């Protein structure tokens, strides 16, 4: 293992950092709009159909999304002029779309619970809509953070989008999952295992954090 580490060290670090960067930015980007979608849904009645559609999209197959985005970003596609295909930005956009349903559906529940508990009360004592929103966010933030961590794990562990719109270009769009797939196809199992361990430990760290939070706060 030591020899492999030495041989691939630079590339391993590069790939790992790129993975963290791409999935981290994608998650934060997705969070920035998902949280408002979730609040909008939570504050409305009779949204069961919409929320169940969003819940079903949680398990969206990444290859299907990747393929759709490929057609969208392709030079002959509608967004071809933006020159996004085979760039890290394309992966970021793809992953942020991928994790949006996760953040929306997970935070929808905690926001609805918080709204039922505090919403009416806050309004009845004269809080404005914005103040109510702030209060509800403050009361449900452990759940929202859990949703973010879930989304991050999903983003960093997905392969389809990163492969199809990223192209697995060495030193540019190669992330942990695509590097593992390439290593397996090349028969270089040792480096794949090493990358797999890195990916697993990143995911375990995030999910352990998730567990601690949900046990403490019974989300």
């Amino acid at each position, binding site marked *: 293992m030591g020899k492999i580490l030495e041989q691939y060290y630079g590339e391993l670090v590069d790939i790992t950092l*790129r993975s*963290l960067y791409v999935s981290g930015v994608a998650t934060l980007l997705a969070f920035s709009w998902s949280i408002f979608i979730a609040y909008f849904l939570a504050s409305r009645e009779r949204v069961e159909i919409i929320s169940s559609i969003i819940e079903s999209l949680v398990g969206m197959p990444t290859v299907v999304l990747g393929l759709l985005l490929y057609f969208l970003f392709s030079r002959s596609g509608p967004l071809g002029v933006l020159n996004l295909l085979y760039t890290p930005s394309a992966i970021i956009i793809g992953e942020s779309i991928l994790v949006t349903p996760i953040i929306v559906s997970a935070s929808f529940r905690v926001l609805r619970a918080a709204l039922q508990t505090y919403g009416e009360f806050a309004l009845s004592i004269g809080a404005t809509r914005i103040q109510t929103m702030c209060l509800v966010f403050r009361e449900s933030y452990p759940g929202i953070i859990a949703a973010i*961590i879930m989304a991050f794990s999903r983003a960093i562990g997905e392969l389809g989008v990163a492969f199809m719109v990223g192209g697995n*270009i060495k*030193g540019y769009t190669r992330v942990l999952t695509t590097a593992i797939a390439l290593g397996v196809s*090349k028969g270089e199992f040792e480096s794949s295992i090493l990358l797999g361990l890195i990916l697993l430990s990143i995911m375990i760290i995030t999910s352990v954090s998730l567990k601690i939070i949900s046990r403490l706060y019974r989300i």
Partner: protein
Amino acid sequence: MRKGLSRSSLIMYVISIILVAVASGAIGYYMSKSASSGGFTGPTYTYTLTRTHTQVYTEVSTTHYTKTISSISTLYTNYPPPPSTEIRIVISTTTSLYATGLLDYLASEFNKIYPNVKINFVAVGTGAALKIAEKGDACAVFVHAPNLEQEYINKGVIEYGRIIAYNFFIIVGPLDDPARVRDTPNVVEAFKRIYEAGEKGQAIFISRGDNSGTHVKELSIWNKTGLNPRGRPWYKEAGAGMDQVLVMTNELKAYTLSDIGTYLKFKKEGRLPNVEQLFAKGADLINIYSTYLVKSCPENIKIYAKAFLDFVYNNQKQLIGTFGVAEYGAPLFNPAIDKEKELACMWLEIARGG
């Protein structure tokens, strides 16, 4: 109060983990990016981006490069000056060229002259590589399936085709060779024997099944035998790259058609203990690699894509002919430049023959 404190500190801990992870990722990413775009620093010379084309030319012809690339002085005059801003060229390519490491090597040599031109290889099968070109997502292609190439030339997708290298396809199979492929006179006969052995349950054949150059070649050989193995239980379509199919062949002790470059690399690395090269004879099995420019590529990128293809073409002997000699004992690919006419004839024959 104490519970509240621990709650908020825990939340802060989690948030800080995420923030640190993202921030370090971002910083590391940009550092690696800026480091790689800073220009080439070699043992004998250093390029910066402000040097003019003539300066680089004299430097190239007086140092290091005269040893490795002797013909460059006559050719460099036709090359465009290095760009002042970073240019990214996407090249879609067959997996066999990429997996051997040849393309990364070519790109790194090219970057010694054009440090600002970043070449991004998307390694897929030949069929997919041409499809990507048709959609306008690649500026150049490296492929090896003449009949597919002809189709896309006719469609007007690719132009400026040139043969850069060739080697041979080989039949790889188990050491005990149940189908007796070793002593066959020609490849068609060899495939017939594999078919017979397969029907008897003695042999497995793994097909690439991914519309790649090797797959196209394999299908054309089956076509010549007049037999149709599709759907037979011993005929497995993997839908994977050459590298993965060789690994599978080794695991299942099966037969497959491979290009010799990928096979030699894997054999040398000791990844194929159960299989070996059984048949490698005749012009029937020639494997011709060509490069093309994609017509729909934007003009400002195209000139550098063309420069890269010219660079590869003009320095075949020095770059392709020597690649892998030190490591594998023999070159993985043969430069095409001396046999260009013969190869062009063979290319045409395959392109017509389908």
